């Protein structure tokens, strides 16, 4: 069993996770801030716990990217069930034996998240003065976030960032972009999605978001 990834506040988190782990039916817990594992007691290596945390973060981000604030996700496989409770950028993942009632753990997990004093990870926001958005257009940062969120669902966020950046740099957008530019560049980026039906669906969602 692996301990906390950092002594403080990870140390405090590790203590609380241990308490959670002692509940009947719990096979492991993992607390993460964004994609970063704060503490875990999963029966895996730290690396594998990190991979799991990345998957959980992609799942949560896919909802957040379209404005949906998910409180908890509970899902089950043949051999294990998983409860994910979220607060801001914190995600608490609890592995459960399949016959365990998650309701008994939800309140405890929620309380733990509320009591934890962990600063959310700082997002990479531009530090320069806020760009002036063109009338009817959008800021480059918003555009990047939207496209990375969409493309990331299909190919992962790291790869998505690599696909989104070059067309933006070629276009030379500076802080803000017109709606027409956003549409043109966005469609160009989405052309990189190999699966036709997924590409069509993402294009549909992109255009909807642009018009919203």
């Amino acid at each position, binding site marked *: 069993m692996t301990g906390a990834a950092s002594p403080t506040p990870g140390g405090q988190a590790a203590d609380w996770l241990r308490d959670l782990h002692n509940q009947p039916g719990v096979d492991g817990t993992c607390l993460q801030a964004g994609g970063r594992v704060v503490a875990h007691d999963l029966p895996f290596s730290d690396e594998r716990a990190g991979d799991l945390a990345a998957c959980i973060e992609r799942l949560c981000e896919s909802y957040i990217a*379209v404005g*949906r604030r*998910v409180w908890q996700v*509970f*899902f089950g*496989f043949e051999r294990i069930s998983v409860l994910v409770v979220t607060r801001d950028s914190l995600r608490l993942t609890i592995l459960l034996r399949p016959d365990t009632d998650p309701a008994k753990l939800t309140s405890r997990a929620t309380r733990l998240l509320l009591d934890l004093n962990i600063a959310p990870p700082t997002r990479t926001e531009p530090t320069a003065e806020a760009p002036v958005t063109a009338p009817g257009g959008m800021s480059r940062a918003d555009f990047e976030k939207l496209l990375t969120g969409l493309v990331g*669902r299909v190919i992962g966020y790291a790869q998505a960032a690599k696909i989104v950046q070059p067309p933006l740099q070629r276009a030379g957008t500076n802080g803000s972009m017109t709606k027409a530019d956003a549409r043109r560049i966005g469609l160009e980026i989405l052309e990189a999605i190999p699966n036709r039906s997924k590409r069509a669906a993402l294009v549909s*969602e992109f255009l909807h978001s642009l018009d919203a």
Partner: protein
Amino acid sequence: MAWRLLTNRWMTKGLLEVAHSVEIRLDPNREILSASDEVFRPEHQEEARTLISESEILSDYLDAVGYHLKAGDLRFATVTEAERETAFQYDADGKRTIRLTRAHQGLGQFSKP
């Protein structure tokens, strides 16, 4: 097929405005086998398609989680948000059931099929 998740705008003016709960049952080809009456109303078909797409997207994400856990096939998922809960059941034969509920009704609706 539309392939997008619901936005907040739709969440406040959609199926849950006319029904406390709706259910959609799908065959392995994602065609509707049966569904609540509200799902077939023209004004709600876009949202229904979105729910079906969400079942697809969610299973993609959760399959990745299952891969890391070596946990076997996905059986069910429940997503809880403010004032709504969406439950998905994934049957071994490829059929699916989606249940959208207005309020938080408790987790694990499909945990004991």
